[in-house]
Protein backbone atom coordinates (compact mmCIF):
# COMPACT_ATOMS: atom_id res chain seq x y z
CA UNK A 1 0.00 0.00 0.00
CA UNK A 2 1.59 3.22 -1.09
CA UNK A 3 1.08 6.81 -0.09
CA UNK A 4 -1.11 7.58 -3.11
CA UNK A 5 -3.52 4.82 -2.27
CA UNK A 6 -3.63 5.88 1.35
CA UNK A 7 -4.31 9.52 0.63
CA UNK A 8 -6.91 8.59 -1.99
CA UNK A 9 -8.77 6.45 0.55
CA UNK A 10 -8.46 9.24 3.10
CA UNK A 11 -10.08 11.67 0.67
CA UNK A 12 -12.82 9.14 -0.09
CA UNK A 13 -13.40 8.73 3.60
CA UNK A 14 -13.66 12.49 4.04
CA UNK A 15 -16.15 12.83 1.19
CA UNK A 16 -18.38 10.12 2.62
CA UNK A 17 -17.92 11.74 6.02
CA UNK A 18 -19.10 15.08 4.61
CA UNK A 19 -22.41 13.50 3.59
CA UNK A 20 -22.72 11.64 6.90
CA UNK A 21 -22.08 14.86 8.81
CA UNK A 22 -24.70 16.79 6.85
CA UNK A 23 -27.28 14.09 7.50
CA UNK A 24 -26.30 13.47 11.09
CA UNK A 25 -26.48 17.17 11.93
CA UNK A 26 -30.17 17.15 10.97
CA UNK A 27 -30.77 14.01 13.05
CA UNK A 28 -28.87 15.23 16.04
CA UNK A 29 -30.63 18.58 16.38
CA UNK A 30 -33.99 16.81 16.34
CA UNK A 31 -32.71 14.25 18.85
CA UNK A 32 -31.45 17.03 21.06
CA UNK A 33 -34.71 18.96 21.02
CA UNK A 34 -37.33 16.27 21.12
CA UNK A 35 -35.45 13.26 22.33
CA UNK A 36 -36.60 11.22 19.34
CA UNK A 37 -34.69 9.60 16.56
CA UNK A 38 -36.30 10.51 13.28
CA UNK A 39 -36.22 7.21 11.40
CA UNK A 40 -37.75 9.00 8.41
CA UNK A 41 -34.52 10.95 8.02
CA UNK A 42 -33.20 8.48 5.48
CA UNK A 43 -36.42 8.86 3.52
CA UNK A 44 -35.94 12.63 3.22
CA UNK A 45 -32.37 12.06 2.08
CA UNK A 46 -33.63 9.68 -0.60
CA UNK A 47 -36.42 12.08 -1.59
CA UNK A 48 -33.89 14.90 -1.94
CA UNK A 49 -31.77 12.71 -4.19
CA UNK A 50 -34.76 11.94 -6.42
CA UNK A 51 -35.78 15.60 -6.58
CA UNK A 52 -32.25 16.47 -7.64
CA UNK A 53 -32.20 13.66 -10.21
CA UNK A 54 -35.53 14.73 -11.72
CA UNK A 55 -34.84 18.45 -11.86
CA UNK A 56 -31.40 17.93 -13.41
CA UNK A 57 -32.26 15.26 -15.95
CA UNK A 58 -35.83 16.10 -16.92
CA UNK A 59 -35.94 19.87 -16.76
CA UNK A 60 -33.42 22.51 -17.69
CA UNK A 61 -33.07 23.66 -14.11
CA UNK A 62 -29.50 23.76 -13.00
CA UNK A 63 -27.87 21.92 -10.18
CA UNK A 64 -27.84 25.09 -8.13
CA UNK A 65 -31.62 25.42 -8.19
CA UNK A 66 -32.03 21.83 -7.05
CA UNK A 67 -30.44 22.45 -3.70
CA UNK A 68 -33.01 25.04 -2.50
CA UNK A 69 -35.84 23.11 -4.18
CA UNK A 70 -34.96 19.86 -2.40
CA UNK A 71 -34.51 21.77 0.84
CA UNK A 72 -37.92 23.42 0.54
CA UNK A 73 -39.82 20.23 -0.32
CA UNK A 74 -38.17 18.12 2.38
CA UNK A 75 -38.42 20.86 5.01
CA UNK A 76 -42.14 21.38 4.34
CA UNK A 77 -42.87 17.65 4.40
CA UNK A 78 -40.85 17.21 7.57
CA UNK A 79 -42.54 20.14 9.28
CA UNK A 80 -45.88 18.68 8.24
CA UNK A 81 -44.99 15.30 9.73
CA UNK A 82 -43.95 16.95 12.98
CA UNK A 83 -46.94 19.26 13.23
CA UNK A 84 -49.52 16.60 12.40
CA UNK A 85 -48.19 13.39 13.88
CA UNK A 86 -45.38 13.77 16.36
CA UNK A 87 -46.87 16.80 18.07
CA UNK A 88 -50.16 14.96 18.52
CA UNK A 89 -48.40 12.02 20.13
CA UNK A 90 -46.56 14.41 22.47
CA UNK A 91 -49.91 15.96 23.38
CA UNK A 92 -51.32 12.51 24.12
CA UNK A 93 -48.38 11.94 26.43
CA UNK A 94 -46.99 8.98 24.54
CA UNK A 95 -43.45 7.80 24.88
CA UNK A 96 -40.62 8.41 22.48
CA UNK A 97 -40.73 4.89 21.11
CA UNK A 98 -44.21 5.56 19.75
CA UNK A 99 -42.91 8.64 17.96
CA UNK A 100 -40.04 6.67 16.50
CA UNK A 101 -42.49 4.05 15.22
CA UNK A 102 -44.62 6.81 13.68
CA UNK A 103 -41.66 8.20 11.72
CA UNK A 104 -40.80 4.65 10.70
CA UNK A 105 -44.31 4.14 9.30
CA UNK A 106 -44.06 7.45 7.48
CA UNK A 107 -40.73 6.42 5.99
CA UNK A 108 -42.12 3.08 4.76
CA UNK A 109 -45.15 4.72 3.13
CA UNK A 110 -43.00 7.49 1.67
CA UNK A 111 -40.49 5.03 0.22
CA UNK A 112 -43.30 3.11 -1.48
CA UNK A 113 -44.67 6.35 -2.95
CA UNK A 114 -41.22 7.20 -4.28
CA UNK A 115 -40.95 3.70 -5.80
CA UNK A 116 -44.35 4.25 -7.39
CA UNK A 117 -43.36 7.58 -8.93
CA UNK A 118 -39.75 6.92 -9.95
CA UNK A 119 -39.55 3.13 -10.13
CA UNK A 120 -37.05 0.89 -8.39
CA UNK A 121 -34.25 1.07 -10.94
CA UNK A 122 -31.16 2.86 -9.60
CA UNK A 123 -30.51 6.17 -11.32
CA UNK A 124 -27.54 8.45 -11.48
CA UNK A 125 -27.46 12.20 -11.49
CA UNK A 126 -25.27 14.16 -13.87
CA UNK A 127 -23.06 17.00 -12.72
CA UNK A 128 -23.02 20.70 -13.57
CA UNK A 129 -20.22 21.40 -16.05
CA UNK A 130 -18.28 23.60 -13.64
CA UNK A 131 -17.85 20.71 -11.22
CA UNK A 132 -16.83 18.09 -13.76
CA UNK A 133 -13.28 16.93 -14.11
CA UNK A 134 -10.59 16.41 -11.56
CA UNK A 135 -7.99 18.35 -9.68
CA UNK A 136 -4.43 17.50 -8.76
CA UNK A 137 -3.75 17.70 -5.04
CA UNK A 138 -0.27 16.59 -4.05
CA UNK A 139 0.17 12.94 -5.02
CA UNK A 140 -3.42 12.27 -6.10
CA UNK A 141 -5.89 13.35 -8.74
CA UNK A 142 -9.29 13.89 -7.22
CA UNK A 143 -12.74 14.71 -8.68
CA UNK A 144 -13.69 18.34 -8.28
CA UNK A 145 -17.22 17.50 -7.31
CA UNK A 146 -16.16 15.43 -4.34
CA UNK A 147 -14.04 18.31 -3.10
CA UNK A 148 -17.04 20.57 -3.58
CA UNK A 149 -19.16 18.25 -1.39
CA UNK A 150 -16.60 18.45 1.39
CA UNK A 151 -16.52 22.25 1.15
CA UNK A 152 -20.30 22.55 0.98
CA UNK A 153 -20.84 20.32 3.98
CA UNK A 154 -18.26 22.30 5.89
CA UNK A 155 -19.99 25.61 5.12
CA UNK A 156 -23.40 24.25 6.16
CA UNK A 157 -21.92 23.14 9.45
CA UNK A 158 -20.40 26.58 9.99
CA UNK A 159 -23.78 28.14 9.19
CA UNK A 160 -25.51 25.85 11.68
CA UNK A 161 -22.93 26.61 14.30
CA UNK A 162 -23.47 30.36 13.79
CA UNK A 163 -27.24 29.84 13.88
CA UNK A 164 -27.19 27.97 17.18
CA UNK A 165 -24.65 30.20 18.88
CA UNK A 166 -25.09 33.70 17.53
CA UNK A 167 -28.70 34.21 16.45
CA UNK A 168 -31.65 34.92 18.73
CA UNK A 169 -33.70 32.11 17.19
CA UNK A 170 -30.88 29.61 17.62
CA UNK A 171 -30.44 30.55 21.25
CA UNK A 172 -34.18 30.13 21.84
CA UNK A 173 -33.94 26.67 20.30
CA UNK A 174 -31.10 25.80 22.62
CA UNK A 175 -33.08 27.07 25.59
CA UNK A 176 -35.83 24.57 24.71
CA UNK A 177 -33.18 21.91 24.50
CA UNK A 178 -31.88 22.76 27.97
CA UNK A 179 -35.19 23.23 29.79
CA UNK A 180 -38.37 23.16 27.80
CA UNK A 181 -40.75 24.11 30.60
CA UNK A 182 -38.73 27.05 31.83
CA UNK A 183 -38.31 28.29 28.30
CA UNK A 184 -42.04 28.04 27.61
CA UNK A 185 -42.79 29.89 30.86
CA UNK A 186 -40.67 32.75 29.57
CA UNK A 187 -42.79 32.93 26.44
CA UNK A 188 -40.98 30.77 23.90
CA UNK A 189 -43.31 29.17 21.38
CA UNK A 190 -41.74 25.75 21.85
CA UNK A 191 -44.07 23.72 19.58
CA UNK A 192 -43.55 26.11 16.67
CA UNK A 193 -39.78 26.15 17.11
CA UNK A 194 -39.74 22.38 17.39
CA UNK A 195 -41.58 22.10 14.09
CA UNK A 196 -39.18 24.57 12.47
CA UNK A 197 -36.13 22.67 13.70
CA UNK A 198 -37.60 19.36 12.57
CA UNK A 199 -38.17 20.92 9.15
CA UNK A 200 -34.64 22.33 9.14
CA UNK A 201 -33.27 18.86 9.87
CA UNK A 202 -35.24 17.13 7.13
CA UNK A 203 -34.46 19.97 4.70
CA UNK A 204 -30.74 19.48 5.27
CA UNK A 205 -31.28 15.77 4.67
CA UNK A 206 -32.84 16.64 1.32
CA UNK A 207 -29.84 18.79 0.39
CA UNK A 208 -27.51 15.97 1.40
CA UNK A 209 -29.51 13.70 -0.91
CA UNK A 210 -28.98 16.03 -3.88
CA UNK A 211 -25.26 16.17 -3.11
CA UNK A 212 -24.92 12.41 -2.66
CA UNK A 213 -26.81 11.59 -5.87
CA UNK A 214 -23.87 11.90 -8.28
CA UNK A 215 -21.50 10.04 -5.91
CA UNK A 216 -23.55 7.22 -4.39
CA UNK A 217 -26.27 6.91 -7.01
CA UNK A 218 -30.01 7.26 -6.51
CA UNK A 219 -32.15 4.30 -5.49
CA UNK A 220 -35.14 3.78 -3.20
CA UNK A 221 -33.19 1.88 -0.56
CA UNK A 222 -30.39 4.39 -0.13
CA UNK A 223 -32.13 6.00 2.83
CA UNK A 224 -32.62 2.95 5.01
CA UNK A 225 -29.11 1.73 4.30
CA UNK A 226 -27.52 4.99 5.35
CA UNK A 227 -29.79 5.44 8.37
CA UNK A 228 -28.03 2.65 10.21
CA UNK A 229 -24.64 4.30 9.83
CA UNK A 230 -26.14 7.63 10.89
CA UNK A 231 -27.31 6.10 14.16
CA UNK A 232 -23.71 5.24 14.87
CA UNK A 233 -22.53 8.73 13.98
CA UNK A 234 -24.99 10.53 16.26
CA UNK A 235 -24.39 8.18 19.17
CA UNK A 236 -20.66 8.50 18.79
CA UNK A 237 -20.94 12.27 18.55
CA UNK A 238 -23.06 12.74 21.62
CA UNK A 239 -26.36 14.54 22.09
CA UNK A 240 -27.00 17.62 20.01
CA UNK A 241 -23.30 18.35 19.79
CA UNK A 242 -22.44 19.60 16.30
CA UNK A 243 -18.72 19.42 16.96
CA UNK A 244 -19.11 15.87 18.20
CA UNK A 245 -21.10 15.02 15.07
CA UNK A 246 -18.32 16.35 12.86
CA UNK A 247 -15.67 14.41 14.73
CA UNK A 248 -17.61 11.15 14.73
CA UNK A 249 -18.67 11.60 11.11
CA UNK A 250 -15.02 11.90 10.07
CA UNK A 251 -14.08 8.92 12.23
CA UNK A 252 -16.82 6.67 10.82
CA UNK A 253 -16.12 7.85 7.27
CA UNK A 254 -12.45 6.94 7.65
CA UNK A 255 -13.26 3.59 9.31
CA UNK A 256 -15.46 2.71 6.35
CA UNK A 257 -12.93 3.90 3.77
CA UNK A 258 -9.94 2.11 5.32
CA UNK A 259 -12.03 -0.93 6.28
CA UNK A 260 -13.23 -1.28 2.70
CA UNK A 261 -9.68 -0.97 1.40
CA UNK A 262 -8.00 -3.33 3.87
CA UNK A 263 -10.77 -5.88 4.49
CA UNK A 264 -14.04 -5.66 2.58
CA UNK A 265 -17.17 -3.54 2.41
CA UNK A 266 -19.11 -5.92 4.66
CA UNK A 267 -16.30 -6.12 7.19
CA UNK A 268 -16.21 -2.33 7.35
CA UNK A 269 -19.92 -2.27 8.16
CA UNK A 270 -19.52 -4.92 10.86
CA UNK A 271 -16.73 -2.82 12.33
CA UNK A 272 -19.03 0.22 12.42
CA UNK A 273 -21.79 -1.66 14.25
CA UNK A 274 -19.25 -3.15 16.60
CA UNK A 275 -18.08 0.37 17.41
CA UNK A 276 -21.70 1.37 18.07
CA UNK A 277 -22.35 -1.51 20.48
CA UNK A 278 -19.13 -0.92 22.39
CA UNK A 279 -19.80 2.80 22.72
CA UNK A 280 -23.42 2.32 23.82
CA UNK A 281 -22.27 -0.06 26.50
CA UNK A 282 -19.25 1.71 27.86
CA UNK A 283 -19.90 5.33 27.09
CA UNK A 284 -23.61 6.01 26.48
CA UNK A 285 -22.91 9.74 26.46
CA UNK A 286 -20.88 9.45 23.28
CA UNK A 287 -17.25 10.27 22.73
CA UNK A 288 -17.60 14.03 23.00
CA UNK A 289 -21.07 14.36 24.52
CA UNK A 290 -21.61 15.98 27.88
CA UNK A 291 -25.01 14.56 28.83
CA UNK A 292 -26.41 11.20 27.86
CA UNK A 293 -26.60 10.71 24.15
CA UNK A 294 -30.09 9.32 24.27
CA UNK A 295 -32.51 9.52 27.10
Amino acid sequence: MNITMLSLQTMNGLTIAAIYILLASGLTIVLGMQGIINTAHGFFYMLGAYIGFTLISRTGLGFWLCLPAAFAVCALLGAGLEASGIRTLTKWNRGHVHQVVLTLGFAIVGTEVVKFIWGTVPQSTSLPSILRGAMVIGPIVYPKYWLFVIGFSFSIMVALWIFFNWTGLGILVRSIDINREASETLGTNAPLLTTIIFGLGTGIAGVAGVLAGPILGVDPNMGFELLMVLFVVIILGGLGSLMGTIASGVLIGLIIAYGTMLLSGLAAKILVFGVMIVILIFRPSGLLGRGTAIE
Partner: protein
Amino acid sequence: MKSATLPNVNGQKVRFSVYWWVPLLAVLAALPAVFSLSGFADYLNYVAVRIMILALYAMSFDIVYGYAGMFSLGHAAFLGGGAYVAGILTRQLGLDIQDTLPVLLAAALFGVVLGWVMGFLASRLASPLAVLLVTFAVAETLGLFVMADPLRITSADNGIPGIPRETLGWIIGIETEVGFYYVVLVILSLSYVALRAITRSPFGDALLAIRENRLRASFLGYRVTHYQIAAFMVSGLFGSLAGALTAFHEQSCSPEIFNFFVSGDAFIYTVLGGAGTLFGPLLGTTIMIVAQEVIGDIFHNWLFFLGLIYIGLIMFMPGGLYPLILARFTHDENSCMQDTAPRS
Protein backbone atom coordinates in the same frame (compact mmCIF):
# COMPACT_ATOMS: atom_id res chain seq x y z
CA MET B 1 -43.62 9.27 36.20
CA LYS B 2 -46.51 7.27 34.88
CA SER B 3 -48.93 5.73 37.31
CA ALA B 4 -47.89 2.32 38.41
CA THR B 5 -51.20 0.52 38.15
CA LEU B 6 -50.62 -2.98 36.96
CA PRO B 7 -53.01 -4.01 34.25
CA ASN B 8 -54.89 -7.21 34.65
CA VAL B 9 -52.99 -8.99 32.00
CA ASN B 10 -52.17 -11.77 34.37
CA GLY B 11 -55.72 -12.90 34.33
CA GLN B 12 -56.25 -12.28 38.00
CA LYS B 13 -59.46 -10.42 37.33
CA VAL B 14 -60.22 -11.41 33.80
CA ARG B 15 -61.72 -14.84 34.07
CA PHE B 16 -63.44 -16.87 31.45
CA SER B 17 -66.46 -18.89 32.27
CA VAL B 18 -65.82 -21.18 29.32
CA TYR B 19 -62.68 -22.95 28.38
CA TRP B 20 -62.32 -20.89 25.25
CA TRP B 21 -59.28 -22.78 24.14
CA VAL B 22 -61.13 -26.07 23.68
CA PRO B 23 -63.21 -24.98 20.68
CA LEU B 24 -60.26 -22.98 19.36
CA LEU B 25 -57.97 -26.01 19.38
CA ALA B 26 -60.72 -28.13 17.85
CA VAL B 27 -61.12 -25.66 15.01
CA LEU B 28 -57.35 -25.48 14.47
CA ALA B 29 -57.08 -29.27 14.46
CA ALA B 30 -59.87 -29.51 11.91
CA LEU B 31 -58.44 -26.83 9.60
CA PRO B 32 -56.32 -29.10 7.37
CA ALA B 33 -59.38 -31.22 6.70
CA VAL B 34 -61.34 -28.11 5.78
CA PHE B 35 -58.48 -26.92 3.59
CA SER B 36 -58.35 -30.22 1.76
CA LEU B 37 -61.89 -29.56 0.53
CA SER B 38 -60.68 -26.53 -1.38
CA GLY B 39 -58.66 -26.66 -4.56
CA PHE B 40 -55.52 -25.14 -3.07
CA ALA B 41 -55.05 -27.03 0.18
CA ASP B 42 -51.25 -26.84 -0.01
CA TYR B 43 -51.24 -23.08 -0.17
CA LEU B 44 -53.71 -22.71 2.72
CA ASN B 45 -51.74 -25.15 4.85
CA TYR B 46 -48.56 -23.29 4.03
CA VAL B 47 -50.07 -19.96 5.12
CA ALA B 48 -51.58 -21.48 8.28
CA VAL B 49 -48.23 -22.93 9.31
CA ARG B 50 -46.55 -19.62 8.57
CA ILE B 51 -49.07 -17.83 10.79
CA MET B 52 -48.47 -20.26 13.66
CA ILE B 53 -44.69 -19.99 13.43
CA LEU B 54 -44.72 -16.21 13.25
CA ALA B 55 -47.25 -16.09 16.09
CA LEU B 56 -44.70 -17.94 18.21
CA TYR B 57 -42.13 -15.37 17.11
CA ALA B 58 -44.50 -12.50 18.00
CA MET B 59 -45.22 -14.03 21.42
CA SER B 60 -41.50 -14.20 22.09
CA PHE B 61 -41.25 -10.52 21.18
CA ASP B 62 -44.13 -9.77 23.50
CA ILE B 63 -42.21 -11.12 26.49
CA VAL B 64 -39.59 -8.45 25.95
CA TYR B 65 -41.86 -5.64 24.78
CA GLY B 66 -45.25 -6.22 26.34
CA TYR B 67 -44.11 -7.70 29.64
CA ALA B 68 -40.60 -6.40 30.29
CA GLY B 69 -41.24 -3.08 28.55
CA MET B 70 -38.11 -2.99 26.40
CA PHE B 71 -38.51 -2.10 22.76
CA SER B 72 -36.31 -4.45 20.79
CA LEU B 73 -35.80 -3.58 17.15
CA GLY B 74 -33.50 -6.54 16.67
CA HIS B 75 -35.78 -9.47 17.22
CA ALA B 76 -35.00 -10.77 13.76
CA ALA B 77 -31.67 -11.84 15.28
CA PHE B 78 -33.51 -14.64 17.13
CA LEU B 79 -35.61 -15.72 14.17
CA GLY B 80 -32.68 -15.56 11.78
CA GLY B 81 -30.28 -17.10 14.27
CA GLY B 82 -32.61 -20.05 14.82
CA ALA B 83 -33.11 -20.51 11.11
CA TYR B 84 -29.38 -20.47 10.44
CA VAL B 85 -28.67 -22.88 13.28
CA ALA B 86 -31.08 -25.27 11.58
CA GLY B 87 -29.55 -24.64 8.18
CA ILE B 88 -25.94 -25.00 9.33
CA LEU B 89 -26.54 -28.12 11.43
CA THR B 90 -28.40 -29.97 8.73
CA ARG B 91 -26.58 -28.85 5.61
CA GLN B 92 -23.24 -27.20 6.19
CA LEU B 93 -21.29 -29.19 8.76
CA GLY B 94 -21.61 -32.62 7.27
CA LEU B 95 -23.11 -33.97 10.50
CA ASP B 96 -25.80 -35.85 8.64
CA ILE B 97 -28.53 -35.11 11.17
CA GLN B 98 -31.64 -36.82 9.92
CA ASP B 99 -34.05 -35.72 12.61
CA THR B 100 -35.44 -32.28 13.36
CA LEU B 101 -35.75 -32.67 17.13
CA PRO B 102 -32.07 -32.19 18.07
CA VAL B 103 -31.88 -29.30 15.63
CA LEU B 104 -34.88 -27.59 17.24
CA LEU B 105 -33.32 -28.05 20.67
CA ALA B 106 -30.00 -26.68 19.46
CA ALA B 107 -31.75 -23.65 17.98
CA ALA B 108 -33.58 -23.02 21.26
CA LEU B 109 -30.29 -23.25 23.12
CA PHE B 110 -28.71 -20.84 20.68
CA GLY B 111 -31.64 -18.47 21.29
CA VAL B 112 -31.07 -18.57 25.03
CA VAL B 113 -27.40 -17.72 24.60
CA LEU B 114 -28.12 -14.94 22.10
CA GLY B 115 -30.87 -13.73 24.44
CA TRP B 116 -28.32 -13.48 27.21
CA VAL B 117 -26.03 -11.40 24.99
CA MET B 118 -28.80 -9.08 23.88
CA GLY B 119 -30.28 -8.85 27.36
CA PHE B 120 -26.87 -8.09 28.81
CA LEU B 121 -26.38 -5.27 26.33
CA ALA B 122 -29.93 -3.93 26.65
CA SER B 123 -30.12 -4.10 30.43
CA ARG B 124 -27.11 -1.85 30.76
CA LEU B 125 -29.03 0.92 29.06
CA ALA B 126 -31.79 2.79 30.86
CA SER B 127 -33.10 4.65 27.85
CA PRO B 128 -35.64 2.91 25.58
CA LEU B 129 -34.09 4.50 22.51
CA ALA B 130 -30.68 3.13 23.40
CA VAL B 131 -32.19 -0.34 23.82
CA LEU B 132 -33.83 0.04 20.42
CA LEU B 133 -30.51 0.95 18.82
CA VAL B 134 -28.38 -1.69 20.48
CA THR B 135 -30.79 -4.54 19.71
CA PHE B 136 -31.02 -3.27 16.18
CA ALA B 137 -27.23 -3.22 15.94
CA VAL B 138 -27.00 -6.81 17.19
CA ALA B 139 -29.42 -8.06 14.53
CA GLU B 140 -27.71 -6.05 11.85
CA THR B 141 -24.27 -7.32 12.87
CA LEU B 142 -25.47 -10.93 12.84
CA GLY B 143 -27.00 -10.40 9.41
CA LEU B 144 -23.76 -8.91 8.12
CA PHE B 145 -21.76 -11.82 9.55
CA VAL B 146 -24.00 -14.23 7.71
CA MET B 147 -23.49 -12.21 4.53
CA ALA B 148 -19.72 -11.89 4.99
CA ASP B 149 -19.43 -15.57 5.96
CA PRO B 150 -15.94 -15.52 7.49
CA LEU B 151 -16.22 -19.15 8.70
CA ARG B 152 -17.50 -20.48 5.37
CA ILE B 153 -20.59 -22.03 6.91
CA THR B 154 -23.44 -19.67 6.01
CA SER B 155 -22.79 -19.63 2.24
CA ALA B 156 -23.03 -15.80 2.14
CA ASP B 157 -25.90 -14.22 0.27
CA ASN B 158 -26.94 -17.44 -1.43
CA GLY B 159 -28.58 -18.65 1.75
CA ILE B 160 -28.86 -22.35 2.56
CA PRO B 161 -31.25 -24.28 0.32
CA GLY B 162 -32.54 -27.81 0.66
CA ILE B 163 -32.92 -28.10 4.43
CA PRO B 164 -34.34 -31.60 5.00
CA ARG B 165 -37.54 -32.11 6.94
CA GLU B 166 -38.27 -35.78 7.46
CA THR B 167 -39.05 -36.80 11.00
CA LEU B 168 -39.49 -35.39 14.47
CA GLY B 169 -38.17 -37.57 17.27
CA TRP B 170 -37.34 -40.26 14.64
CA ILE B 171 -40.98 -41.40 14.69
CA ILE B 172 -43.34 -38.69 13.57
CA GLY B 173 -43.18 -38.02 9.86
CA ILE B 174 -43.39 -34.35 9.01
CA GLU B 175 -42.53 -34.40 5.35
CA THR B 176 -46.03 -33.49 4.30
CA GLU B 177 -47.43 -30.03 4.85
CA VAL B 178 -50.29 -31.45 6.93
CA GLY B 179 -47.98 -33.47 9.17
CA PHE B 180 -45.84 -30.41 9.74
CA TYR B 181 -49.00 -28.40 10.45
CA TYR B 182 -49.89 -30.62 13.40
CA VAL B 183 -46.35 -30.62 14.76
CA VAL B 184 -46.23 -26.83 14.64
CA LEU B 185 -49.67 -26.64 16.22
CA VAL B 186 -48.53 -28.80 19.12
CA ILE B 187 -45.31 -26.81 19.54
CA LEU B 188 -47.25 -23.56 19.48
CA SER B 189 -49.77 -24.82 22.04
CA LEU B 190 -47.06 -26.09 24.37
CA SER B 191 -45.15 -22.83 24.00
CA TYR B 192 -48.31 -20.89 24.77
CA VAL B 193 -48.90 -22.91 27.93
CA ALA B 194 -45.27 -22.48 28.96
CA LEU B 195 -45.28 -18.75 28.31
CA ARG B 196 -48.58 -18.43 30.16
CA ALA B 197 -47.08 -20.14 33.16
CA ILE B 198 -44.00 -17.93 32.95
CA THR B 199 -45.93 -14.69 32.65
CA ARG B 200 -48.35 -15.59 35.45
CA SER B 201 -45.57 -16.58 37.79
CA PRO B 202 -44.00 -14.15 40.27
CA PHE B 203 -41.32 -13.72 37.63
CA GLY B 204 -43.91 -12.36 35.19
CA ASP B 205 -45.27 -10.01 37.84
CA ALA B 206 -41.77 -8.73 38.49
CA LEU B 207 -41.33 -8.05 34.77
CA LEU B 208 -44.55 -6.02 34.75
CA ALA B 209 -43.40 -4.08 37.80
CA ILE B 210 -40.11 -3.29 36.05
CA ARG B 211 -41.99 -2.27 32.93
CA GLU B 212 -44.20 0.11 34.83
CA ASN B 213 -41.49 1.63 36.94
CA ARG B 214 -37.96 0.40 36.82
CA LEU B 215 -36.84 2.56 39.74
CA ARG B 216 -39.60 1.48 42.15
CA ALA B 217 -39.05 -2.14 41.24
CA SER B 218 -35.39 -1.80 42.10
CA PHE B 219 -36.35 -0.16 45.42
CA LEU B 220 -38.47 -3.18 46.20
CA GLY B 221 -35.35 -5.26 45.90
CA TYR B 222 -35.77 -6.70 42.41
CA ARG B 223 -32.53 -7.00 40.50
CA VAL B 224 -33.83 -5.21 37.45
CA THR B 225 -30.98 -6.11 35.11
CA HIS B 226 -31.22 -9.83 36.01
CA TYR B 227 -34.93 -9.86 35.23
CA GLN B 228 -34.39 -8.03 31.96
CA ILE B 229 -31.69 -10.45 30.88
CA ALA B 230 -33.92 -13.38 31.85
CA ALA B 231 -36.77 -11.90 29.81
CA PHE B 232 -34.50 -11.73 26.78
CA MET B 233 -33.36 -15.31 27.34
CA VAL B 234 -36.93 -16.62 27.50
CA SER B 235 -37.75 -14.55 24.45
CA GLY B 236 -34.69 -15.82 22.63
CA LEU B 237 -35.59 -19.44 23.33
CA PHE B 238 -39.01 -19.19 21.70
CA GLY B 239 -37.87 -16.75 19.03
CA SER B 240 -35.11 -19.04 17.82
CA LEU B 241 -37.41 -22.05 18.04
CA ALA B 242 -39.70 -20.18 15.67
CA GLY B 243 -36.67 -19.45 13.51
CA ALA B 244 -35.71 -23.12 13.21
CA LEU B 245 -39.33 -23.97 12.41
CA THR B 246 -39.26 -21.30 9.69
CA ALA B 247 -36.16 -22.90 8.18
CA PHE B 248 -37.85 -26.33 8.18
CA HIS B 249 -41.04 -24.83 6.82
CA GLU B 250 -39.39 -23.00 3.93
CA GLN B 251 -36.74 -25.74 3.71
CA SER B 252 -34.20 -22.99 3.19
CA CYS B 253 -32.93 -19.84 4.84
CA SER B 254 -31.50 -16.64 3.45
CA PRO B 255 -29.88 -13.52 4.94
CA GLU B 256 -33.05 -11.48 4.34
CA ILE B 257 -34.41 -13.04 7.52
CA PHE B 258 -32.21 -10.63 9.48
CA ASN B 259 -33.87 -7.74 7.70
CA PHE B 260 -34.99 -4.91 9.87
CA PHE B 261 -38.54 -5.26 8.57
CA VAL B 262 -38.66 -8.74 10.12
CA SER B 263 -37.95 -7.17 13.49
CA GLY B 264 -40.60 -4.56 12.76
CA ASP B 265 -43.09 -7.30 11.90
CA ALA B 266 -42.80 -8.74 15.40
CA PHE B 267 -43.70 -5.34 16.76
CA ILE B 268 -46.69 -4.86 14.46
CA TYR B 269 -48.07 -8.38 15.07
CA THR B 270 -47.81 -7.86 18.81
CA VAL B 271 -49.17 -4.34 19.01
CA LEU B 272 -52.05 -5.01 16.63
CA GLY B 273 -53.24 -7.91 18.74
CA GLY B 274 -52.39 -6.36 22.07
CA ALA B 275 -49.01 -6.11 23.74
CA GLY B 276 -48.81 -7.46 27.24
CA THR B 277 -51.18 -10.32 26.48
CA LEU B 278 -50.24 -13.69 25.05
CA PHE B 279 -53.34 -14.11 22.95
CA GLY B 280 -52.81 -10.69 21.36
CA PRO B 281 -49.76 -11.68 19.28
CA LEU B 282 -51.64 -14.76 18.00
CA LEU B 283 -54.55 -12.59 16.90
CA GLY B 284 -52.33 -9.87 15.46
CA THR B 285 -50.18 -12.31 13.49
CA THR B 286 -53.24 -14.00 12.02
CA ILE B 287 -54.74 -10.71 10.90
CA MET B 288 -51.49 -9.36 9.49
CA ILE B 289 -50.51 -12.48 7.53
CA VAL B 290 -53.98 -12.87 6.08
CA ALA B 291 -53.99 -9.17 5.19
CA GLN B 292 -50.54 -9.52 3.67
CA GLU B 293 -51.62 -12.47 1.54
CA VAL B 294 -54.83 -10.76 0.39
CA ILE B 295 -53.57 -7.20 -0.07
CA GLY B 296 -50.24 -8.36 -1.47
CA ASP B 297 -52.15 -10.46 -3.99
CA ILE B 298 -54.47 -7.67 -5.08
CA PHE B 299 -52.25 -4.59 -5.02
CA HIS B 300 -48.72 -6.08 -5.19
CA ASN B 301 -47.72 -3.29 -2.87
CA TRP B 302 -47.84 -4.67 0.62
CA LEU B 303 -45.21 -2.35 2.11
CA PHE B 304 -47.31 0.73 1.42
CA PHE B 305 -50.18 -0.71 3.45
CA LEU B 306 -47.76 -1.95 6.09
CA GLY B 307 -46.55 1.61 6.56
CA LEU B 308 -50.12 2.86 6.87
CA ILE B 309 -50.79 0.15 9.47
CA TYR B 310 -47.71 1.29 11.40
CA ILE B 311 -49.01 4.86 11.47
CA GLY B 312 -52.63 4.00 12.21
CA LEU B 313 -51.78 1.54 14.97
CA ILE B 314 -49.34 3.73 16.81
CA MET B 315 -51.59 6.78 16.56
CA PHE B 316 -54.99 5.35 17.33
CA MET B 317 -54.74 1.88 18.79
CA PRO B 318 -51.50 1.37 20.71
CA GLY B 319 -53.31 -0.93 23.14
CA GLY B 320 -54.26 -3.44 20.46
CA LEU B 321 -57.38 -5.37 19.54
CA TYR B 322 -57.53 -8.14 22.12
CA PRO B 323 -57.82 -5.87 25.17
CA LEU B 324 -60.63 -3.99 23.42
CA ILE B 325 -62.47 -7.23 22.71
CA LEU B 326 -61.97 -8.40 26.27
CA ALA B 327 -63.28 -5.16 27.69
CA ARG B 328 -66.35 -5.50 25.50
CA PHE B 329 -67.19 -9.03 26.63
CA THR B 330 -66.34 -8.89 30.29
CA HIS B 331 -68.17 -5.63 31.05
CA ASP B 332 -65.80 -5.20 33.90
CA GLU B 333 -64.33 -1.76 34.19
CA ASN B 334 -61.23 -3.06 35.89
CA SER B 335 -60.54 -5.48 33.13
CA CYS B 336 -60.50 -2.78 30.52
CA MET B 337 -56.90 -3.07 29.48
CA GLN B 338 -56.58 -0.06 27.27
CA ASP B 339 -53.02 1.08 27.08
CA THR B 340 -51.52 -2.10 28.37
CA ALA B 341 -48.86 -1.36 25.81
CA PRO B 342 -45.76 0.07 27.41
CA ARG B 343 -45.78 3.83 27.08
CA SER B 344 -42.06 4.19 26.86
